[in-house]
């Protein structure tokens, strides 16, 4: 029965957030398609020469000094962070809104009076978030592989899977944090604003970490730095980085469920 209830909720939430999924994944896919289509120009054309002339710090910030842009995976890695931020924003906001909406829409009295525990219902909701948090990078991964294979004229490297796998781990991390934020506040707007701040804040902390040796330790505070795309292509994926991101996401989700199951729900 418990698995049935969780499945019922998960199916409903997947349907309910299909439009949100499309609203995020279609623009991201469009941007990614454009970026991938530009690979020949950036690797060997005049744009490539411009990139070569960029200041060292900027080249380092974008990871350009570590990779060969003729490689599809390496080229993708120099742009992947933008899409990982997009996926993280989607997952974080979805994790927050899927919990907070019941009180915002005043539908808590419909759902949480059913003969199911809050933990069962939340498991269904968070399961739906997890599925979307993995599906978006998977779709982007397949799309980028298809386009780059066509335009680069070189085979797609296994690092592709690691790049998007790390992106999914980062998304799951922020999905859990989004749920925790929503379990701690009562209205969806506050929860969305807070998780937006967390995603962008940790990204900027990560950027700060590469500016000077003094700020370098800040990288440990940013999930975006636990598996940098350029580093994945250059040195392979860090299993530790993935485990920490997933662990933080799961711990945040468990904490969200514990908080949410103990609090009063107001219509």
């Amino acid at each position, binding site marked *: *029965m418990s698995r*049935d209830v969780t499945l*019922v909720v998960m199916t409903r939430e997947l349907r309910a957030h299909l439009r949100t999924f499309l609203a995020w994944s279609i623009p991201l896919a469009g941007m990614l398609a454009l970026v991938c289509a530009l690979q020949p120009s950036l690797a060997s054309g005049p744009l490539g020469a411009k990139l070569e002339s960029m200041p060292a710090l900027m080249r380092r910030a974008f990871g350009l000094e570590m990779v060969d842009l003729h490689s599809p995976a390496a080229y993708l890695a120099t742009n992947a962070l933008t899409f990982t931020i997009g996926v993280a924003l989607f997952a974080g906001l979805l994790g927050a809104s899927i919990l907070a909406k019941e009180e915002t*829409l005043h539908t808590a*009295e*419909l759902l949480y009076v*059913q*003969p199911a525990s809050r933990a069962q219902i939340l498991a269904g909701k968070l399961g739906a978030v997890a599925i979307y948090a993995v599906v978006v990078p998977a779709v982007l991964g397949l799309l980028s592989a298809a386009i780059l294979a066509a335009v680069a004229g070189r085979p797609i490297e296994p690092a592709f899977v690691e790049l998007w796998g790390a992106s999914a781990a980062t998304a799951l991390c922020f999905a859990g944090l989004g749920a925790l934020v929503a379990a701690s506040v009562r209205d969806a707007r506050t929860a969305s604003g807070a998780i937006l701040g967390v995603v962008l804040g940790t990204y900027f902390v990560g950027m700060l970490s590469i500016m000077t040796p003094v700020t370098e330790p800040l990288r440990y505070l940013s999930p975006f730095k636990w598996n940098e795309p350029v580093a994945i292509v250059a040195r392979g994926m860090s299993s530790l980085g993935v485990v920490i991101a997933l662990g933080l996401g799961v711990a945040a989700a468990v904490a969200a469920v514990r908080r949410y199951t103990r609090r009063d729900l107001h219509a």
Partner: protein
Amino acid sequence: MNAIEIHSLRKDYGGGRMGIEDITLEVPAGTIVGFIGPNGAGKTTTIRILLGLIAATSGSARLFGRDVRTDGPRARAGTGYVPGETNLYPAMKVGDLLAYLARFHAGDHQPRRRELAELFDLDLAATTTDLSLGTKKKVAIVAALEPAPRLVILDEPTSGLDPIMRARLFDRLRDEAAGGATVFFSSHALSEVEATCERVAIVNRGRVVAYDEVGALRRRAMRRVHATFDGAGSGGDALAGLAARRLDGVESFERHGNVITFLYRGPVPPLLDALAAASPSDVRIEEASLEDVFLADFAPAREGAHRHVS
């Protein structure tokens, strides 16, 4: 067996806001019980604790013997709920929403859904976003009744419903009770409570101040007296006469021409003596309505009830 057992239930929201002080109540299975009281008395808070939406500060609440806090899902199994204010998921077909909510309960509920939708003139193909307040309420009613619950809890179920739908709802609730279901509902429409319920619990300032059969409550509480006097000014003389005899328990005096009406709470002989002394040409003594009981008991107390939240 009791469908609902509440013992010394207390809810303190903090910050000086008290939900309920001390509610103790037992609702036998298969009965229809009304739950009435002034605004802020604690009716909705009690119901929300029963349904596991909020946690009590102390005390216990059980549905069919199962604690709502520690065994919530099983306690709520077979319970239907109609909230006071109905809010639905937007942009869903009514039929899809009802099917979704029914999946939490075992069994196939489609035949009952169709039957109830027909009874309440509910279009299952309509979209939830376009529904009026009353239609949303009908959706909530169908959602609560379609799994054939053994306990139906309704919080102000008739708000937003037209008179025809109200009548159909109460007919249906009586049918459900005849089939063995327990019905527990709060309402401000005391005439509905009076016409539908076997027992009534009156709650005020977070406490149950009376819980009895409707008739017993009316009889125990007071009588409404109509006395007619012949001749101009004789009504006023009668009032003066009653006052002079210091008849305790008289309240809510009203005078319309040569007819005076008042509520009386107390033994009958002193009332008859006082009326005989006033020499009315006609006297009619009747049981007070539940509304009379309610107004006489709680209207003066409302001022102090503002710190309670529902």
